[in-house]
């Protein structure tokens, strides 16, 4: 099911990666910062409407995944092209949700156009979730010092997932 859908490596851009988020001290700052980058990179028509959709999604269930990871996301009309922003905070910041909170170092913020099918939307999330289980992938992200490092980590991770799904049914 994976291959027909969007890959993170296909949508991530240098303008949507922030490796120095150490000044970020809370979830709202992180989301504002990453959403701002998606806006600057031309993914959004309306920044405020998009941020609102991210918080609406947050109400539905936690996007804090444990292991220093959060994957907030928003799907709405204000998204004109699917996008992914990535932020790294080596110091970590507190990420609070309705069902618990924890320290976060890796944040992926997804912007999903409203017309994207539910299946494609879930597939993007699923792929990212699968990637984040692999320690090598997370380690590569923790140690990233350039956009190229992040991009390579994602490419390597996606390749690993493909190899795994070919070898294990």
């Amino acid at each position, binding site marked *: *099911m994976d291959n027909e859908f969007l890959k993170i490596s296909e949508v991530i851009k240098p303008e949507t990666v922030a490796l120095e988020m150490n000044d970020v001290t809370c979830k709202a700052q992180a989301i504002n910062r990453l959403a701002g980058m998606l806006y600057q990179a031309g993914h959004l028509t309306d920044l405020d409407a998009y941020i609102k959709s991210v918080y609406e999604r947050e109400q*539905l*269930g*936690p*996007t804090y*995944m*444990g*292991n220093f990871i959060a*994957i907030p996301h928003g799907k709405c009309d204000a998204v004109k092209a699917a996008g992914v922003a990535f932020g790294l905070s080596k110091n970590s910041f507190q990420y609070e949700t309705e*069902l618990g909170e924890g320290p976060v170092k890796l944040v992926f913020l997804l912007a999903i156009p409203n017309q994207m099918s*539910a*299946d494609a939307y*879930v597939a993007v*999330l*699923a792929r*990212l*979730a*699968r990637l*984040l*289980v*692999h320690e090598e992938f997370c380690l590569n992200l923790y140690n990233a010092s350039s956009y190229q490092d992040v991009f390579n980590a994602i490419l390597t991770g996606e390749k690993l997932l493909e190899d*795994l799904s070919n070898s*294990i*049914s």
Partner: protein
Amino acid sequence: MKIVAITACAAGIAHTYMAAEAVKKAAREAGDEIKIEIQGAMGIENRLKQSDIDDAELIIFAVNISVRDRDRFSDKNPILIDPGEFISNPNKSLEKAKNSLLPKHRSL
């Protein structure tokens, strides 16, 4: 060891997939044969065949909601593990599932 697993999570779409990947990863590292059914937002993915279920030496339910089509497992002994726990500690959780199985085998 032949293992089948089902993942399903109340907490959200992504957790279900993370749990599936965690089970897969742990099984691969332990040299086990694994088939995983994902009960997620898109319905049932990679649905297990009855023969897979019947042949399995270990059945893991990495779920915190009820399993759909539970009747396929009516005479089985699935080991229940929280998906969040599997995500945080894949190898330990798999080990725990195997250990929960052992005493029952011994008593047979």
